[in-house]
């Protein structure tokens, strides 16, 4: 793995909602090396999307720092800021909202090329747009240049979004649930395309999803981070996190997931939660946020002390008092 591309140092983000403060992301530290695939997995409200938006620079941190190639993104100089701004791109979840409906595909992709002077002249721009469309498997590209977004399927639109992000030659792409609204039958081909960007161009990917099976497939040689109520519960090599989950929350999640195989899904060992109630972000439990539901609850220490993320087995880091 290469140099650290993105580093989060004790990043926290709070929101004020009706005179109350909620902590969406609470003290997250992690490093993403260049060209790595990291999947952030968790249920709604776990802070995965907020984390993604902070890395994208769309949200400021409330505390802590985010570094891009060693520079704090909040205090960068102009030139560095510009490099960061173009270096980190995003592919959104909703293929129906991520493309401007009144622009033709050609214009959508050509605009950033021309604005930043990546291409000079109409002919060169056109050539580059065709090249980018080919990269994202929209072939033959001439079939797509003059189309409007509504004339494309969800999967095709996501490909256009990726092509648009690639115009500025990013080193990192944040894909927030980028395939969850796409038809099941074509998700894998989209993920394969993301994988190719990594292999062929060295583009790192932060893939945010609620689907652990999808995360395992996509991260494969990369890492999976499991989030719960704003904190990282466990982070480690994708295969190991799924095969040898160590945090009780990860274990519960994995045991709860139904699988597309009747034999396996019906014989699976289930771990029961202590409580089905999801705590409100407004009143987070003290100590380990998972303790009121945790099947491995071990008394006082879980209630009082926030478990730090520390080295555990299988190359993972786990935030649980019970994991040695």
């Amino acid at each position: 793995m290469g140099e650290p591309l993105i580093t989060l140092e004790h990043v926290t983000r709070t929101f004020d909602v009706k005179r109350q403060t909620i902590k969406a992301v609470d003290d997250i530290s992690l490093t993403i090396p260049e060209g790595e695939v990291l999947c952030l997995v968790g249920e709604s409200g776990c802070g995965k999307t907020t984390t993604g938006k902070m890395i994208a620079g769309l949200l400021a941190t409330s505390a802590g720092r985010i570094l891009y190639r060693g520079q704090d993104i909040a205090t960068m100089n102009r030139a560095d800021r510009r490099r960061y701004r173009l270096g980190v791109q995003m592919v959104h979840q909703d293929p129906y909202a991520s493309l401007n409906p009144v622009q033709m595909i050609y214009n959508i992709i050509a605009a950033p090329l021309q604005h930043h002077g990546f291409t000079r002249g109409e002919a060169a721009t056109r050539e580059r747009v065709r090249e980018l469309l080919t990269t994202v498997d929209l072939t033959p590209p001439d079939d797509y240049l003059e189309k409007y977004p509504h004339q494309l399927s969800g999967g095709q639109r996501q490909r256009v979004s990726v092509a648009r992000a690639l115009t500025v030659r990013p080193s990192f792409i944040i894909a927030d649930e980028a395939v969850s609204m796409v038809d099941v039958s074509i998700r894998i081909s989209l993920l394969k395309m993301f994988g190719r960007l990594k292999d062929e161009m060295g583009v790192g990917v932060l893939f945010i999803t609620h689907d652990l099976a999808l995360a395992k497939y996509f991260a494969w040689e990369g890492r999976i981070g499991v989030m719960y109520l704003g904190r990282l519960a466990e982070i480690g090599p994708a295969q190991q996190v799924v095969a040898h989950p160590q945090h009780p929350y990860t274990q519960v999640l994995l045991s709860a997931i139904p699988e597309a195989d009747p034999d396996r899904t019906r014989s699976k060992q289930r771990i029961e939660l202590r409580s089905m109630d999801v705590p409100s972000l407004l009143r987070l439990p003290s100590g380990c946020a998972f303790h009121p539901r945790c099947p491995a609850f071990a008394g006082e220490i879980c209630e009082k002390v926030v478990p730090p993320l520390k080295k555990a087995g299988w190359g993972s880091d786990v935030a649980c008092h019970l994991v040695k």
Partner: protein
Amino acid sequence: MEPILSVRDLTIEYAARRGKVRAIRSVSFDVRRGEALALIGESGSGKTTLGLGIVQLLPSTARIAGGSIVYRRYSDTGQPMRETEVLTLKDADLRRFRWAECAMVFQSALNALNPVLRISDHFADTAKAHRYLSGPRQGAALTERSRHLLSRVRLDPDRVWRAFPHELSGGMRQRVLIALSLLLEPQLLILDEPTTALDILTQRNIMDVLKELRTQLDFSLVFISHDLSLAAELADRVATVYAGKIVEIGEVYTIFRNPHHPYTIGLIKAVPTLTSDKSELTSIPGSPPDLIELPSGCKFHPRCPLADDHCRREEPELIDVESGHRVACWRWQDARAVLKAYQV
């Protein structure tokens, strides 16, 4: 097992700006007593229209162009009592059918509860509208039954009964709706995407609740979903729907272990599981067809690696390939072998 619902040659169309949307094209299937049938399909396959068609809740732009839906009521001892043609039901009969015989919980269920009414009011209103448990002891009996149902779906009646919908989480509201739909003791429950948009642990809870209910109460279940794992977990039989038609139907184990339609095979290979290997997974090329301008012949042919001239020319009908397993494909015999070697 005897069917409680027999759908025959059902055809449903929508009027749209660009032309006629052929959402359901001559679909036939049975729902048997006490079984759970999963209708699996992607967006735009027509599976939701099919559900709405059964309970006659289609939007005004839709038209039932043909076919029949026969519903059979059975006595507690399992004797067939009477048959009803659903498509000819009107007004009061139709309303009665919708709750007392066949209830549907929608995909948008999370907004289906009236925000200004307490949960108890929802139960009271439903009972009143259908004159359920009328008589002097109506109030007490109704409360008892409602609270019993709420505990059946693993909700704490003391906590939920006087609550307003917004005080409950998405998963709790979903379970309230399931309890509410069972109030009038229907024989058939239709669930449209029952777990979509819910978190994993909540999904698990809903699935467990449904499994439990089926062992305790006597009703059939039809659920409509794009999620294969839900079908694997809950269904007795699975039907795959593509471009407004059922292309394969059979026992759940048969469908997952020995699928014959290239679309079903493709779908199963497109969904990653926690144990599947990276190389096993592959997408189906292309995208689902436009229901206004459908391709010729077999509607799956533009995406099918096995397609030949016959497929392009003529649409296959469902045929029995083994007992209880029906497939609509000209090349079902070699589909598995050919697709095994095929990668996208």
